[in-house]
């Protein structure tokens, strides 16, 4: 950008949002350093910023704490980073209605502490430092996906600012609401490519009074897979059924989380232990419990989704792909909910061929293999193996939605790999 344009742009942005500075190396996303970083105080300033950005044809990326900005693909260009750090309030907590309205920059740990005062929670297992906006925009989901779903399942209302500065709402403050289209569903998981979320309203759940973890280890994979399905399908109502296998061909560690009343949980845990056979019951999670998905490292993170009935075939496919690519990844995750993760440290060879082989082996199964994060070298290699996203149904419709919401393609351009 010419320095004259830069000065004009700076002035326009500052008029909309006084908390503004020039971009620096620390603001880089990949190797793209933005020209400016702004901290709007709320929806109005955010709208003014995006209007100014539109007038000056700026590419914009939204940032919470930035912990997952390295996921996916770096933007093609980024002129302005809009940081949600000043929009960090819990605007409303209607405990009697089990509803909370939150700003996107609020960190989930702080929100959880506040809601816990009334014995309530947003039932998502995410890192305490993750921001509300980041959680919704990335679709980040932890072990209790099995019982409560992902962020979009708990979102009942949203305020967004679009690329041209338009402010729009959908949903509301009541759990039952089918008036109009649900923009919250579209924005959840959209990684900032449709616009900025400036308010999110969630339905809450009561904090459980007690928890128990029932853990077991299985040497025979079929027995282990059957146990995962049995636990997930049991009327004992597991909140989470997690799996870990440290290396291909290794034993399966299974852990089931039960939540409820103290007596109820104790009784159910005993019965779940019987169901799994030779299991232990403890009030604390086992040391390997995956917990919130907190991958911020420089390596590769892959997510596999599937029907639970295919778990055995998925593990076999991982074994085959590992053998063929000379890798030996561990696997962990919400197997009971049909989701597993694999991590590869940076510098490991064979990641992209592993991915391609796994996709081929699972081609006839429902679900997919998505590379959520990878170093630049791996991303480049993945192009020949299905890219980061693999197969994405209805890509044309997704592009049509993007074109409607962001015709100038300035919201995190290029960010949704191979999709937008």
């Amino acid at each position, binding site marked *: 950008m010419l320095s004259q344009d830069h000065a004009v742009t700076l002035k326009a942005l500052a008029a909309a949002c006084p908390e503004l500075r020039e971009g620096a190396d620390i603001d880089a996303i990949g190797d793209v350093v933005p020209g400016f970083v702004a901290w709007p105080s709320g929806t109005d300033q955010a709208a003014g910023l995006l209007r100014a950005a539109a007038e000056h044809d700026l590419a914009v990326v939204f940032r919470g704490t930035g912990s997952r900005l390295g996921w996916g693909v770096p933007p093609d260009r980024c002129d302005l980073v809009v940081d949600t750090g000043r929009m960090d309030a819990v605007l409303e907590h*209607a405990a*009697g209605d*089990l509803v909370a309205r939150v700003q996107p920059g609020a960190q989930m740990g702080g929100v959880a502490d506040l809601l816990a005062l009334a014995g309530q929670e947003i039932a998502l297992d995410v890192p305490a430092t993750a921001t509300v906006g980041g959680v919704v925009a990335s679709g980040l989901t932890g072990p209790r996906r099995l019982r409560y*779903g*992902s962020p*979009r*399942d708990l979102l009942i209302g949203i305020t967004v600012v*679009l690329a*041209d500065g*338009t402010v*729009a*709402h*959908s949903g509301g*403050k*009541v*759990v*039952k*609401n*089918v*008036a*109009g*289209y*649900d*923009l919250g*569903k*579209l924005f*959840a*998981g*959209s990684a900032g490519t*449709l616009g900025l979320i400036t308010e999110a309203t969630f339905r809450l759940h*009561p*904090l459980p*009074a007690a928890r128990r973890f029932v853990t077991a280890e299985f040497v025979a994979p079929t027995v282990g897979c059957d146990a995962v399905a049995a636990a997930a*399908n*049991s*009327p*004992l*109502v597991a909140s989470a059924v997690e799996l870990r296998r440290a290396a291909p061909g290794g034993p399966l560690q299974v852990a089931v989380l039960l939540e*409820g*009343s103290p007596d*109820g*949980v*104790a009784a*159910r845990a005993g019965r779940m232990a019987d169901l799994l056979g030779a299991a232990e019951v403890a009030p604390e999670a086992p040391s390997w419990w995956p917990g919130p998905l907190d991958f911020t490292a420089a390596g590769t993170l892959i*997510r596999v*989704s599937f*029907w639970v009935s*295919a778990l055995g075939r998925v593990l076999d496919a991982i074994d085959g792909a590992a053998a063929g690519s000379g890798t030996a990844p561990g696997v962990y995750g919400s197997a009971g909910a*049909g989701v597993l993760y694999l991590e590869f440290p940076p510098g490991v060879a064979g990641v992209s061929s592993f991915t391609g082989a796994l996709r081929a082996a699972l081609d006839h199964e*429902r*679900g*997919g293999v*998505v590379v959520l994060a990878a170093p630049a070298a791996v991303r480049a290699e993945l192009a020949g193996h299905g890219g980061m996203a693999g197969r*994405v*149904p*209805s890509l044309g*419709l*997704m592009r*049509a939605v993007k074109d*409607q919401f962001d015709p100038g393609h300035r919201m995190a351009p290029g960010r949704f790999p191979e999709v937008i």
Partner: protein
Amino acid sequence: MADTADKAAAKAAALAGRMTDICGAPNVLTDPLELRTYECDGLTSHRATPALVVLPGTAEQVAGVVRACAEADVPFVARGSGTGLSGGAVPHSEGVLIVLSRMRDVLEVDPVARRAVVEPGVTNLSVTDAVRPYGLFYAPDPSSQVVCSVGGNVAENSGGAHCLKHGFTVHHVMGLEVVTPAGELTWLGDGTGVVSGYDLLGGFIGSEGTLGIVTKIVVKLTPAPEAVHLVLAAYSSLEQGGRAVTDIIGAGIVPAAIEMMDALSIEAAEAAVHCNYPEGAGAVLLVELDGPVAEVEAELATVRAICDAAGAREIRAADDPVQRAGIWAGRKSAFAAVGRLSPAYIVQDGVVPRTALGDVLARISRLSEEAGIRVANVFHAGDGNLHPLVLYNDTVPAETEAAEVLSGAILDTCIEYGGSITGEHGVGVDKSRYMPKMFSAADLETMQLVRCAFDPAGLCNPGKIFPTPRLCGEVPGPRRAPHPIVAAGQAEIF
């Protein structure tokens, strides 16, 4: 204008030949009397006779039918069982009505994965029937579940009495095969519920048939609960019942269902099904608890104590399925039952924050008195979804108008208290005029961006949800000369 309408209807009718090639002659209706039988859905106050009715039998036939409409620039409306209460399936008088009721197979059941794949014409209850042998059920359970179709449930994001705990259709659908308004078959979501890219699946559910037609639905199945207990508590007043509900929620319990009925609806239900609810009750509260035996026993004790402390005149409890069904019969018969009290009634579907229920019910009572129009109240007390039944004599024009004014005032109240104009029935044609009261112009215009992405030609169930259509493909930015269609007075720009 009539001339244009006739021409348009003729254009639709001219498709009959092509539709016959696609669906077979018995599945294409042109006889005027047959067409009229499809003129409305469950909302009988809005009617329109379609120019043509087709009943496809496969997803490919649905795609062919839609493609034919798209190529001929003819609007189309999809219909499941026709039980909707917002007029979502009211046909377009110059268009084709596509009826999905022939597509009613359960295609696949995977009890280990707890998933099934069903066609859109499958009734809601028959999904549960198909999976009951595996100890599973399909959780969203609208009161019309014996008849209503899963495709229709998808269109409306149907809930039912158990949705506070068990969620809505959107929480139980993992993938959809749809026919886009251009006539292409495509999948939304991959059947696992884990989203890659935009959640088009989530956006499509609840879009009231305006973004395409569903041809296959991947549903999530729920393990049948070990224990189900139903508590009925009778109170002298709605206020007392409301206090019990507040305290139950405050105790950290999320019942499977909490329903309340007022004296008038109890009277109607009694006359209809002889449910034998406690006599003289001003309000009846039904609280259903489900889950693992150990949890339900604890919750049951707490709920009974709370109901008692709130001043219950009588408390009954049942855990036996037959007894429970008997108690539910009163509540489930309520809508139909009020037909005995009144020649006509308007069903409302507003939602208010649960904590505002007391105030809102008092307001409805006052409005009802002032208007001289009776209102029977049945509602999902746990989530604030009201179903005021506005009773009137439709042979008296003044009463008809007063009833409509009162209905509108009730919806205005719901909006005033930060609620919604529709909790589960949908906007359809019935409530589109209230959308600008609940949402700003920018909100509605932004929602319609989605419509433009799916249906730029505006042929898919047009005229539903949004009071005035947005013109798609406009250049964004400041408007200059009025668009010709605006100038002709056929659309507005927000």
